[in-house]
C-alpha cells in the first residue's frame, strides 16, 4: 500500500519549549490513524506542520508524495484539515463559506459536491443561514464541510468532537467512517480514547513531542491485554506485603494490579492471604485503550524503545 502521509524527523521549538522532538511516522493510504497524547504533547503542532501553518525547524513532511514546503500547492490540494478551534467567518452564509473555500482551491461551480456534503452533514436546511447564527455543533459541521470541498484524499481532524453532543458525535463518526471506507485516509486526534479505540486501525501516542508508542490498535491493546485487579484494602496500601506493593499502582486508596492472564489471579490472592490483608472491595476490569495510554504515558523509560 502506498504512503499517504510521511513525517520524518520533524523538530519544532517555540522559544525554550520543544514542541516536537524528532517525530517520524508514516500513514498508509486508506488508513484510519489516531494521534493520541496529553495536552501539550505536540499533536496540534504536528498537524500544523503537515498543513503548512507551522514551519518545522528541521525534518520533512509530505502528503501523497508532495513535500509540504517545496511542493506546497500539490500537498495542500491533497489535504483537508478540520481545525480544533471553532472558527468561522461571520460575514458569510454556510453556502457562501463553502463556495469561497472551493474557490481558494481553484474549484468553481462546485455546488453539486457542496450539496452532497451539506446533505451528509445534515446542513441542507442551514445552507443560506449566516455562520453567526449557527449553534456550536453546526459550526463544527461546517468546518468539516470546509475541509472536504476540494475532495482531499487525506483528511485530518484535530479533536473534532471536543464539546460536541452525543448525537452529533455519532453522526460525525458515521460520516467520517464512510469517507474512510470510500478510500479517504483519515488522521484523527482525540481526547476520547474509546473513540480512537472504536475507529482507528493504528495509533501513535505522543508525549513531550516524541512518539512513545506506534502500533496497530489491536497490538497496543494486546500489549496491555489481560485484566486489572482493583482492590480496596481495610488497612490501605500500607498493609500490602513489600513484594506486592512494588507491583501495585495506587490511586485514591485503590491498589491496581495488572494481570497478563487470569492464571495470575490465584497466586496474587494467596499472597494477599499470607500477608493477612483484609479486602474491602474487589473489581476485575478488562484492559482498554485508556490503560494502554496511561501505561505508555507513565512508562517514559520504554518510550524510545517503543518509538523505534
Amino acid at each position: 500500500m502506498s504512503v499517504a502521509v510521511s513525517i520524518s524527523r520533524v523538530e519544532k521549538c517555540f522559544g525554550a519549549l520543544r514542541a516536537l522532538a524528532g517525530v517520524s511516522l508514516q500513514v498508509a493510504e486508506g488508513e484510519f490513524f489516531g494521534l493520541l497524547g496529553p495536552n501539550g504533547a505536540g499533536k496540534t503542532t504536528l498537524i500544523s506542520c503537515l498543513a503548512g501553518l507551522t514551519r518545522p525547524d528541521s525534518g520533512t513532511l509530505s502528503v501523497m508524495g508532495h513535500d509540504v514546503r517545496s511542493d506546497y500547492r500539490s500537498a495542500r490540494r491533497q489535504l483537508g484539515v478540520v481545525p480544533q478551534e471553532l472558527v468561522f467567518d461571520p460575514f458569510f452564509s454556510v453556502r457562501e463559506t463553502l463556495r469561497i473555500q472551493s474557490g481558494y482551491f481553484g474549484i468553481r461551480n462546485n455546488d453539486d459536491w457542496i450539496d452532497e456534503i451539506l446533505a451528509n452533514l445534515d446542513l441542507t436546511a442551514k445552507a443560506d443561514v449566516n455562520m453567526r447564527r449557527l449553534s456550536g455543533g453546526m459550526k463544527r459541521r461546517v468546518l468539516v464541510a470546509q475541509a472536504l470541498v476540494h475532495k482531499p484524499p487525506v483528511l485530518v481532524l484535530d479533536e473534532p468532537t471536543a464539546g460536541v453532543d452525543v448525537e452529533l458525535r455519532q453522526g460525525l463518526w458515521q460520516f467520517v467512517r464512510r469517507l474512510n471506507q470510500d478510500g479517504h485516509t483519515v488522521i484523527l486526534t482525540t481526547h476520547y480514547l474509546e473513540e480512537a479505540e472504536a475507529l482507528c486501525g493504528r495509533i501513535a501516542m505522543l508525549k513531550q513531542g516524541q512518539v512513545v508508542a506506534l502500533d496497530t490498535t489491536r497490538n497496543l491493546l494486546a500489549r496491555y491485554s489481560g485484566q486489572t485487579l482493583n482492590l480496596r484494602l481495610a488497612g490501605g496500601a500500607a498493609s500490602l506485603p513489600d513484594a506486592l506493593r512494588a507491583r501495585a499502582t495506587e490511586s485514591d486508596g485503590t491498589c491496581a494490579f495488572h494481570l497478563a492472564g487470569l492464571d495470575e489471579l490465584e497466586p496474587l490472592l494467596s499472597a494477599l492471604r499470607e500477608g493477612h490483608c483484609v479486602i474491602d472491595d474487589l473489581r476485575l476490569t478488562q484492559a482498554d485503550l485508556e490503560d494502554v495510554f496511561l501505561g505508555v504515558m507513565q512508562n517514559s523509560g520504554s518510550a524510545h524503545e517503543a518509538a523505534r
Partner: protein
Amino acid sequence: MTSGFVTLLYKEVLRFWKVSFQTVGAPVLTALLYLMIFSHVLESHVQVNGVPYGAFLIPGLVIMSALQNAFANSSSSLIQSKVTGSVVFVLLPPISYVEFFLAYVVAAMLRGVMVGVGVLAVTIWFAPLTFVAPHWILLFIALGGAIMGTLGMIAGIWADKFDQLAGFQNFLIMPLTMLSGVFYSIHSLPEFWQVVSRFNPVFYMIDGFRFGFFGASDVAPEFSLAVVTASFVLASAATLALLRSGYKLRS
C-alpha cells in the same frame, strides 16, 4: 494567476461590500461634514492658487477618505481574521504569498476608490470643480490606495490586538493624512513645516491628485509620481518579505 487569487479578492470585496453602510457610507458622510463646516467658515476668506477654498478642499477630502479607508480595509480584515482564527481558511489552501498580497491590496484599493467616488459624488455640488487631467486623478488615487492597502497589511499582520491596530491608525496614518495638505497648500505654512511636509509621502499623493483637477500644484506631478511610486515599491517589498517569512501568520 490561479483562481485562488480571484476568490480571495472576491471574498475581500464581498466582506466590505456586505457592510457598505459602514465601510463606504460612513466615510462619505464624514467627508461631507468636513466640507460643509470648513467651506462655510473659510469660503469667503481663503483662496488657494486662485481656486476657491471649497473647490480646493474637495479633491483633498476625496483622496484623504480613499487613503484612510484603503488602510482600514486590509488592516481590519487581517486583524479580525487573526483574532477570530478564521485566517486558517486562507492559510490552508494553495495560495502563494504573492497572490495573498495582491488580493488584499487590490481589495483595499477598490474600497478606497469606491469611497473616493462616493465622496466626490456628494461634494461635487458644493463648488465648481474642473477635471483638467483625469489620468493624474486616477493614477494617484489608485497608487495611493495601493500604498495604504499595503501599509494596512503590515499593520494587520503585526498587530495582535485591536488596540495595537488603533494605535497604528491614530498615531501614524491619521497624522500623515491630515498633515499632508488636505486642508491647505503647504506654501501657506512656515518654512520649517514646509520642509517637514515634504518628507510625508501622503503629501505627494494629495498634491498630484489635486493637479489632475486644477492643473496647478505645490510640486510638479511627475515628481510626486516618482515619490509615490518609490513609496509603493518600498512598502510592497517590506510586506512581501513579511509574508514570505510567515511572520505572525505561519509560526
